[in-house]
């Protein structure tokens, strides 16, 4: 393989890993708990921002960009802090977005939150460097690689894969746990669940926090690969794409979500690159988004479970013979 193709493959694989982590997080929220987090991309961008500034070094040393919280921390720390920051932001946002009782109301508040955040980032350049974003984010362990960009790239792919395995283990445990059962019950009938004494709002907050932390982790992994952070690349359209991936792959099924991430965010997005240019700039994108809209409608109509639907789970009461009865 020539090095250009290798680099293309590396990029695709890292993006695939990042998207998969993010989709697992969103799936926990939308597919399993049934909460609509339209501000999902906000958590990913926060994670990316935190990971960037914690590895960029103090802001005073920089001549061309301003940011807050600058520090140079050894490798895994920026990712861990980013993950925690995602969870914390989710906690703050959820405390406020979950005030209305209905879930679609809550979704609107999340949408509003993400819009306010976007406005603030762009209009307050002193906090997040405004429209220009961040550049020259250092890559972990890059000094140890003498073999150049390609060798380092494969190393990064392996690292992303490792994080994916870790996250998969986590979401797999979570969806199978009693907590996962509670979340699915909340999706199906929140009222009935709360009549059983479960605090539905607290469960929603928890799932926002866990999903937000996962989104932030995916952002951190992404930003140290591409080396830059720009507010323009985290829009509501990206959140929409994640939702399409989950619905196509199979909401509620962790394996299905991987397939959805590969098909929608990988194949579908990349296919556009190979189409010959036609019409004015932006026409291809608008047709692409129309196709995505049709894809959502088609799947929700014909295959609401997605390509790999959620496994049917049945719970049987343990059979115990009645005392004194026939055995």
């Amino acid at each position, binding site marked *: 393989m020539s090095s250009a193709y290798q680099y293309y493959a590396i990029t695709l694989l890292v993006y695939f890993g990042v998207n998969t982590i993010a989709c697992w997080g969103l799936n926990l929220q939308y597919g399993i708990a*049934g*909460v609509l987090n339209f501000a999902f991309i906000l958590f990913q961008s926060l994670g990316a921002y935190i990971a960037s500034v914690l590895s960029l070094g103090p802001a005073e040393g920089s001549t061309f960009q301003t940011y807050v919280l600058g520090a140079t921390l050894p490798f895994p720390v920026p990712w861990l802090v980013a993950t925690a920051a995602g969870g914390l932001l989710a906690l703050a946002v959820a405390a406020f977005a979950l005030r209305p*009782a209905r879930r679609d109301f809550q979704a609107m*508040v999340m949408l*509003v939150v993400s819009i306010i955040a976007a406005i*603030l980032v762009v209009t307050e350049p002193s906090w997040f460097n405004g429209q220009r974003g961040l550049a020259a984010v250092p890559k972990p362990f890059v000094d140890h690689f003498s073999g150049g960009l390609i060798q380092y790239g494969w190393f990064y792919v392996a690292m992303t894969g490792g994080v994916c395995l870790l996250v998969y283990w986590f979401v797999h445990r979570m969806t199978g746990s009693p907590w996962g059962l509670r979340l699915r019950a909340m999706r199906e009938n929140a*009222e009935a669940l709360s009549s059983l004494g479960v605090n539905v709002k607290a469960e929603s907050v928890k799932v926002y926090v866990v999903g937000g932390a996962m989104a932030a982790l995916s952002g951190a992994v992404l930003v140290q690969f591409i080396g830059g952070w720009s507010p323009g690349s985290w829009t509501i359209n990206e959140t929409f794409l994640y939702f399409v991936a989950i619905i196509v792959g199979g909401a509620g099924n962790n394996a299905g979500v991987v397939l959805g991430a590969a098909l929608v965010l990988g194949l579908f997005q990349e296919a556009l690159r190979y189409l010959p240019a036609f019409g004015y700039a932006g026409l291809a994108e608008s047709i692409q988004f129309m196709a995505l*809209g049709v894809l959502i*409608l088609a799947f929700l109509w014909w295959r609401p479970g997605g390509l790999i639907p959620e496994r049917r789970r049945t719970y049987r009461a343990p059979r115990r013979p009645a005392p004194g009865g026939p055995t």
Partner: protein
Amino acid sequence: MPGLGFGLVTAAILTLGSVGFSLQFGVSNIFNLAYGDVMTVGAFAAYLVNTVGHASIWLGMAAGAVAGSAASTAINTFVYRPFLRRGTALFAMVMVSLAVGTILENGIQAIAGPSYRGYRVTPEKSLHLLGMLLTARQLTVMAIAVACMTALHVILRYTRIGRAMRATAANAELARSCGVGTGRVTTLAWAVSGALCGTSGVALALNLASFNFTVGSSFLLVVVASAVFGSVGQPYGAMAGALVIGVASELAAIVSPSLKQVVAFVLLAIILLVRPNGLWPGTYLQKMEMAAR
């Protein structure tokens, strides 16, 4: 006080939009994210009548109302209602409406292109009115909003069909068992709210002077904010929300234009903290029970 004048115009546009949004939500229980794009449909219908057909902008506005009404009714009849009949959960319906909105918005872009355009209107002088600077066109927009709201009030309060709409909004099953044809009533409510939506789209595009395919969707969040502010499903609450948010955001825009949207959302944040279910909850708790099913 030029800011107050702009604020009242914005409030008038917002009222048309958010009352229509609230009405749809009231009868169908759907958070219709395609609403902003139906506004765009109205704005472009008026553009066709106004520039291609060389008619006055007010005729264009009527065309916008008709187009909005037709688009709304079609979306409800051919997309939302079949999905609801199929048993799609309400939180998934939000995704359905988002998909419909995406298709509409990008469809309009594919046909009309991304360029900005404006209505063919003659420039006019501003009039001084109670210390406010307003053009005759802006005054007409406000008069249309007031007329629409009065008409809606009369329909909802004093006619059989209005009573049927309110009954359907409060409890559709009970209304059905009392002999209300809820299907027809719902369709009619979507037609009426679509007309309001189209009208507000035209008024918005007229007020902005230039617009493209994003005109409605970029306004949608402010519409939603005023509808949620006044409790969604409550047309009167939506009127109050529109007035407060419209005036406040235009007054803030005098200080700094970028504050305009932030103020609208901060107001929404405050109302959510003080009254989580909006200004005017009313039948809201009954709707909760409906939503749980």
